[in-house]
């Protein structure tokens, strides 16, 4: 009787160990399956977000391209009725110089930077400031300071008021310029 009891106890122990092993195997399997699905999910998300980054850059580019072609007509840049020959795509250089120092406009246009360059004569680059204006050829209207940027440009006529020293009369001086708008490139 005692012998049969010990035999059945050892048999139960063996069975118990076997089912414990099975449960462990199943648990490992389930963990592996869960991990597999999590990894697949992460992979799908990764692909989705890389596309998002690319499409955001494309939209930034489109924004810059479309903005540069129309910025000259916005009231902060346009000549209005100040100059005799001022029309569409005429930028008031005097107004832009005043705009350069207005911090209120730092987030107004959703681009990385706005610059105006005189096309002719193509001398060394001299950035305009209150002190050297108008003897300069680059007006940096504003910049967010990123180096990773791509410029889009559009030709404009750049007009300002000038004075004849001898007579004291003022006249309109218009030159060819380039309006440049940049957008940031994602790293």
């Amino acid at each position: 009787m005692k012998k049969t009891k010990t035999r059945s106890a050892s048999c139960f122990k063996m069975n118990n160990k076997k089912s414990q092993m099975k449960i462990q195997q199943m648990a490992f399997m389930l963990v592996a399956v869960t991990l597999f699905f999590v990894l697949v999910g992460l992979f799908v998300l990764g692909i989705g977000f890389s596309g998002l980054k690319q499409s955001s850059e494309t939209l930034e580019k489109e924004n810059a391209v479309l903005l540069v072609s129309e910025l000259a007509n916005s009231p902060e840049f346009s000549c209005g009725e100040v100059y005799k020959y001022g029309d569409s795509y005429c930028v008031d250089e005097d107004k832009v110089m005043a705009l350069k120092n207005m911090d209120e406009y730092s987030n107004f246009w959703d681009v990385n930077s706005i610059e105006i360059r005189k096309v002719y004569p193509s001398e060394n680059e001299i950035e305009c400031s209150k002190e050297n204006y108008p003897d300069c050829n680059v007006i940096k209207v504003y910049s967010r300071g990123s180096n990773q940027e791509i410029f889009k440009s559009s030709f404009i006529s750049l007009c300002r008021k000038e004075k004849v020293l001898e007579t004291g009369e003022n006249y309109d001086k218009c030159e060819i310029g380039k309006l440049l708008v940049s957008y940031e490139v994602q790293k």
Partner: protein
Amino acid sequence: MLKKGYLQISFGWIFAIVVGIVILFLAIFLASKLINIGETKVDSSTAKEIEVLLNPLETSFGEEKTTSFIMPSEARINNKCDNFGNFGTQGISVSQKTFGKYSNTNIDISFENKYIFSDEFIEGKKFYLNSKPLNLPFKIADMIFITSKKYCFLDFPEEIEKDIPLQENIIIEEGKCSEEDVKVCFSDEDGCDIYVNYAQGYVEKNKEKVYFSENLLYGAIFSKPDIYECQTKRIMQRASQLYILNYNKAYLIQEKCQSNLNEELLSFSNDLKNYEKSEDLENIVITSNIINEKNKNEECKLF
């Protein structure tokens, strides 16, 4: 043996079923989250695309621009406006219809340099865009009107006929109007959705009155009164900065070209900053006309 019952399920099976259910629910939860993320991505990139699409609507001298776009599925464009900061903010968000329900979007695309006049939300598949400049007396901003419903203009004065946006959804011939169209009446008629009192310069919509001047008429017609007031205030905020800009310009060029408008520019900029409601528009327009006359007579015009 009989006591064991009819259904013999081992612990291993119960464990597998419970964990399987957990995994299934987890997978369904993750899949729905992924769908939500995908919807948010599509909605926010569509909103950004609409912002980009608004750039070519910048007008030049006295012109207006009209365009339209079609969404791949029924969509709702939400128009949000606030007056914080120097220029206030224009926000838009897009919800697209999937399985008969509009997606919940809480990502707004916001920008400072555009002014959208519309209802709180515009629903449809085809959207019509029109832009007109607002001059005080020089161009201050372009107002963008977004519509999707059909509007029927009735008994309008002849002088505005040429200014009514030439769009498919704006009908100016009474015979072509249908029952569902939004009726815009310029005279006291029954059954109109919007009343325009052109002589006294106000528009009545949902029993709310808003005042207009020149092109703002269309803003008042196409927008919800709250949005109209907010956008008009934002335009005045920009006008205030533009007058400061002209003052700074006058100061910069004073040696080569003297202006006698400096004091008026600063004082008017202050008036524009303190603008509250469209009732103040009349005084603003009067002052801007006085400044315009003075500017015309200056040897050195500022704008």
